[in-house]
């Protein structure tokens, strides 16, 4: 097991290197730079800016600079938040995203897997129909619809919760964004779990267990263990996505998290910020997929990491 973890951590080095290099190239060959805006800049001013940010250097030199800085843990200065370095921006914003995303992840896992297993257990019942229908809705209604709708209903019409804003971290400010983030993931986990559990309940060893008169809850527990696979595989990317925030939910609810940096960084051509997000996602993905693969081994001891 330890050897497996070590090997995977070793793999992280070439993975992250490839991510950084490919992203750098992709980004720099894309038209538009950080200084193209609706109010054009005077040529002399543009020259000064390029020199100040060393954008007048050959690309390979800039790439070398970036790598050298990255190795020292410095993600560079942001172009669109000029009073902050990218590291500072992440240090401030990540806790918000982790709080909201973490809560949404737990909610999605507990409710999604729970509802999915329950629906599978009572396949064909009214409960099953309700879970299937609601999860279908949860999946199809996009967050840019559900988020403003929630805010409109619970803040503007009912007046129960604030419309948006972080509000110094008050719980009432977190409810709607967490729900908006969690809804589609609850639906996804519910569907994946339901399908896998139905299959698992029909498996021979479960039938055997039942035939031997094992209590029904233990049968279900066994089945769930066998059925956890798809949900677990999905957990890696889902966790990475939830914990790194969502630009839609963050802008609509005014959460000062990192989610917006992904899309806005790219749209603003904030080179350092984009590279920062790339490194961030890279680390998250490597980490979560490692955790998921470890969890596989726990769920199904037959899978060995050799």
């Amino acid at each position, binding site marked *: 097991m330890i050897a497996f973890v070590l090997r995977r951590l070793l793999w992280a080095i070439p993975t992250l290197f490839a991510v950084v290099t490919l992203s750098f190239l992709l980004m720099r060959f894309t*038209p538009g730079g950080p*200084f*193209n805006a609706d109010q*054009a800049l005077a040529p002399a*001013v543009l020259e000064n800016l390029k020199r*100040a940010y060393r954008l007048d250097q050959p690309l390979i030199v800039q790439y070398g600079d970036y790598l050298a800085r990255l190795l020292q843990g410095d993600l560079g200065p942001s172009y669109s938040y000029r009073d902050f370095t990218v590291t500072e921006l992440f240090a401030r914003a990540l806790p918000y995203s982790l709080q909201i995303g973490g809560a949404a992840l737990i909610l999605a896992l507990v409710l999604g897997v729970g509802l999915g297993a329950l629906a599978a257990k009572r396949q064909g019942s009214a409960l099953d129909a309700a879970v299937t229908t609601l999860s279908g809705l949860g999946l199809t209604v996009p967050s840019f619809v559900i988020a403003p709708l929630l805010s*409109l209903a619970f803040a503007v019409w009912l007046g129960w919760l604030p419309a948006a804003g972080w509000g110094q971290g008050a719980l009432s400010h977190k409810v709607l964004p967490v729900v908006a983030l969690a809804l589609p993931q609850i639906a996804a986990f519910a569907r994946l779990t339901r399908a896998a559990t139905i299959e698992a309940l029909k498996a021979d060893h479960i039938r055997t267990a039942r035939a031997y008169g094992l209590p029904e809850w233990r049968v279900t527990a066994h089945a769930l263990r066998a059925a956890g696979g798809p949900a677990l595989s999905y957990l890696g990317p889902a966790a990475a996505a939830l914990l790194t925030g969502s630009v839609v939910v963050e*802008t609509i609810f*005014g959460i000062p998290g990192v989610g917006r940096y992904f899309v806005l960084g790219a749209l603003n*051509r904030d080179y350092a910020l984009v590279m920062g997000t790339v490194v961030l996602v890279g680390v998250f993905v490597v980490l979560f997929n490692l955790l998921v693969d470890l969890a596989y081994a726990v769920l199904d001891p037959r899978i060995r990491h050799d």
Partner: protein
Amino acid sequence: MALGMPAQALTVYDRGNAGEPETLDPHLVSTVQEANLMRDLFEGLTAHDARAEVTPGAAERWEASDDGRTWTFMLRPDARWSNGDPVTAEDFVYSLRRILDPAFAAKYANLLYPILNAEKVNKGEAPKEALGIAARDARTLEIRLERPTPYFLELLTHQTTYPVHRASIERFGRDWVKPGRMVTNGAYRLAENLPNDHIRLEKNPFFHAASEVAIDVVNYVPLEDRGAALRRFQTSEIQSYDDVPAEQIAFIRRTLGDQLRIAPYVGVYYYAVNVRKAPFADPRVRRALSMALDREFIAEKVWAGTMLPAYGWVPPGFDGYAPVEASWRAMSQLEREDAALALLKEAGFDPDGQRLEVEIRYNSGENHQNTATAIADMWKAIGVDARLINADGKTHYAHLQNRGDFDVARAAWIADYRDPQNFLFLGLSDNVGFNYPGWNSPPYDALVKASDDMADPAERLATLRKAEAILVDEQPMIPILFYASKALVSHRLKGWEDNVMDIHPTRYLRLEP
């Protein structure tokens, strides 16, 4: 809870701002939303009042030489920084040299080029000491100009001219703008800065008019999503917002009534025509394309009355400058279409034969798309086939600024300072950065350049009008709409005066309970 409250509660104003600032350094900012913040934090030699008229700022009085090239400013004796230091003439010298330093790379440095040697210093061709600014004593400042600049006092309200606190910058470097370190000379000082959440400003007790500032704390809340901003306004989480979702304007009018403020604003929404290539090099083609546009429909229906139809290039609202309008303004829309068809025929196009094909490029966005759609439909009526091409903002503007190929492209210009020259310099042939069409008209260039050296304001404006008439006749840029400022202003917020610069310093506002 109530026991712990101070006897007199602070007046806190939550001010929705349509964008997150890039920086709080007044010499690096470039957006309208940043300017709003800067105006509360700093004060230039002159300032804007609630109606955006020029008033004395850090300077209490000034005089200009007869040739209009040398200005002397007397600083007010009670001008102070937020740490109690006096604001001195030397501070202004330091600040102007700082922003024009080429290594500092300020985006808006070129705005200061009217100052003697500013352009040379900014291009690294002259030492910073050559700049035409000198402190004669602690309270007397002399600024020399390249040429008489009638809008100079207006220019001095701009954030590029704001003083910065030398000691803090030398001590903290680029971190001087952080809360606890930032020293400012305006009505407010920085208390907190949490990106994408809020920026909290507190009243500056050392400000010379502090006793007249009614609002103790102003929280700038960045709100890019206009729908979310509207909801926060509806729930009273913010008391003002400097934009509105245009898609929902009818609903806002119906439910919020006079809390919606729409007023003319100095900006023009236009389509640049690529005059470098045929058939767009032919002014008849450009005129025809322009005449076919039903601007009233675009302004009133597509933009729901949040824009005004534009028949000239310079928006109304400049003192002493009568708007120029296209000669065909008086015609009815069908007459214009007939005339446009005739022009196109002269240029060799025919709705039933050789049809004109035009590609409209625009930056992605709901209203830009609706506008392009409406325009394509209007061009159909004169036998022009339009195709729409969109791209994200950076790609779009990079394409224009790098001289990429295009037929017609959407662009806009918002005034930096209140003077027609700030619009007309876009058409100068040597203005490579801004003149997207690549238009080159020697008589136009001559008129605009000549106006630079005219000391008589009336003569100068008359010359600029002549230049504008050439541009409006040739239509290298097809003006479509003039901007209007749009804002949501709570009934509780008093002192918000609509003005063409859309400037509303917090120090003039009051918040009723």
